[in-house]
């Protein structure tokens, strides 16, 4: 499992998560189009693909192959463990 904090440290990767939040299950093509037109992010397709790899290693994104296509899905579970670590009251911890 990669580092969630390192994955979240990059602004482009945070925008990728924002866009998956808006519509889950996107191809690389759709994400590149969104980043280019909404944020004027001129990153190459290869660069976005590498950002997806980092997010996937941190468990924040899951890729799913359906037939010949590949879709990316948001997984917020790693963020919940962050919330549990610092946002829960002390007495709730055993």
């Amino acid at each position, binding site marked *: 499992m990669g580092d969630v904090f390192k994955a979240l440290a990059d602004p482009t990767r945070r925008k990728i998560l924002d866009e998956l939040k808006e*519509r889950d299950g*996107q*191809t690389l*093509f*759709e994400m590149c189009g969104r980043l280019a037109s*909404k944020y004027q992010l001129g990153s190459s397709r290869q660069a976005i693909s590498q950002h997806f790899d980092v997010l996937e290693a941190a468990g924040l994104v899951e890729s799913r192959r359906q037939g*010949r*296509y590949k879709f990316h899905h948001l997984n917020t579970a790693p963020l919940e463990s962050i919330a549990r670590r610092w946002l829960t009251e002390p007495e709730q911890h055993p």
Partner: protein
Amino acid sequence: MRINLSSVYVDDQDKALRFYTGVLGFVKKTEIPLGEARWLTVVSPEDPEGTELLLEPDGHPATKPFKEALVADGVPLTSFAVDDVEKEHERLRELGVIFTQAPLTMGGVTTAVFDDTCGNLIQIASQ
């Protein structure tokens, strides 16, 4: 100089003709036997003298890996203009067409991406 023809690489010309005419709504323009394959083009019924689309067989060894790599990343091979992407998305979905990108509006342009059943993804766009 002008663009009078564009092509898509299809895995089966008969199947492609059925999809591009029966489902998408283009009409056959030319069909000329050429050995194993045919010179097979379709045009838009809205513009029968306009740009022809050649349904080109994907027999060359380089085309299959090329097509598979594009499809895996969701990249359309080409784009067609429609009046209303939302409407066309609904119409095609009812006909069983699979979309890899539902309608998406960005900067005044709406696009969607579907599978042409012949090994390609095709984008439709309205402005």
